[in-house]
């Protein structure tokens, strides 16, 4: 059932390209803002590049998650989805994995403009950068999908998602910045392995919480 739901999410996105495309355009606009506010000063940008990158991803993920749920709000499709005789935790898992795939796809496209527009060198260990990025994406989406699932059918959900999501995801942002700084500076793995543990803990805790709670929060 999980794969059917995941296929549904991917199929809808493949047809409309709404989520990835909107995230991508928004991400590019944020890069522009970063370039203007930092005067593309090599010192400012290179010191803050990992932080800037994850701030951009944070904003973009809010938009992506909102889009993921909003098309199911139309015609009350979500009510029909949860009326299906399936474990609702699986709906959370499918949205979490599909959200991570969309975010990763968007990042794979935006990573080059991000570094090139800000006049930075691309990460020398590109594979390691991408691998850690996917892990962080899993953590970000585990929180984002749960928060969106909670407030999706509330009034002003577009306001409530970032208000709840940003403080909840703060440990992920700290850890992501530390990991990316370590990878970009090519420091030893031992210096940033603690932050990988933080990311893993968040993935486990929020995935379990999301799987368990989604059954309750999606009740009619």
């Amino acid at each position: 059932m999980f794969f059917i739901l995941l296929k549904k999410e991917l199929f809808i996105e493949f047809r409309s390209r709404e989520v990835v495309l909107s995230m991508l355009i928004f991400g590019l606009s944020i890069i522009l803002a970063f370039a203007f506010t930092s005067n593309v000063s090599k010192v400012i940008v290179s010191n803050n590049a990992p932080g800037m990158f994850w701030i951009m991803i944070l904003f973009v993920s809010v938009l992506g998650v909102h889009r993921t749920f909003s098309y199911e709000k139309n015609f009350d499709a979500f009510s029909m989805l949860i009326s299906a005789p399936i474990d609702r935790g699986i709906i959370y898992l499918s949205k979490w994995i599909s959200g991570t795939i969309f975010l990763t796809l968007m990042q794979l496209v935006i990573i080059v403009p991000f570094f090139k527009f800000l006049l930075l060198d691309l990460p020398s260990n590109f594979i390691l950068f991408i691998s850690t990025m996917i892990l962080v994406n899993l953590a970000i989406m585990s929180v984002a999908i749960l928060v969106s699932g909670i407030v999706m059918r509330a009034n002003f959900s577009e306001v409530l998602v970032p208000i709840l999501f940003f403080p909840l995801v703060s440990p992920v942002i700290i850890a992501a910045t530390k990991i990316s700084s370590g990878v970009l500076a090519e420091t030893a793995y031992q210096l940033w392995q603690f932050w990988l543990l933080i990311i893993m803990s968040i993935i486990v805790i929020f995935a379990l919480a999301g799987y368990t709670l989604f059954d309750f929060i999606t009740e009619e």
Partner: protein
Amino acid sequence: MVTFFKNKNNMFFLIFVGILLLFNIYNISFNTPMVPDQHWAQKIFYVHVPSAWVGFLSYFVVMIAGIMFFVKRNDYWDNVGLAAAEIGTIFISLVLITGPIWATPIWGKPWIWEPRLTTTLILFLIYIGYFMVRSFGGHIERVKRYAASIGIIAFLDVPIIFLSVQFWAPEIQSHPQVEMAKQPAGILIPFLISLCIFTLVYILMLRYRIYVIQIKDKLIKNV
């Protein structure tokens, strides 16, 4: 309020806690030793740390109430969660006010991203979101479930937030509790007394607030 305190036990508890609070103020002001270099500023700890303890205890109660709400499907647990969230936020606000008041003369700045205070601030922000969901979340039955879920995940996030903030800036470790361990022996007993009194105040406030919310609920159901 009148009906709650018509109960003799509640009235006795109120008077008892009131006397203890007055005693606590007197004890902190006149019976605790002055700490060199900190003088009167140090006395804020007898309020700051117990407030933090009560605030985190209250948020723990919100999590337990959230779990119980899902298990028992009883509105009583939603009322407990709401009451604990409100009181917890009052005490956490007190922590965020008293912390910088102490920090200004001691550290020279009101805010230095000290891990415990930062964790408290993040939790405070999450609970602002919690109250926003409560206020304009929409359907009343759904809001109860949303609030219970947020209460659970907020507390689950606390240890990770604390750990990550602590290692984010390891050089900032000058916290009240760390300082307290270095202080003279005369400080510990009044501090523990203050902690117990604050806990009793919290229990009284929680019971009263649950009572008020239950009356409000009954009124809404009867309309």
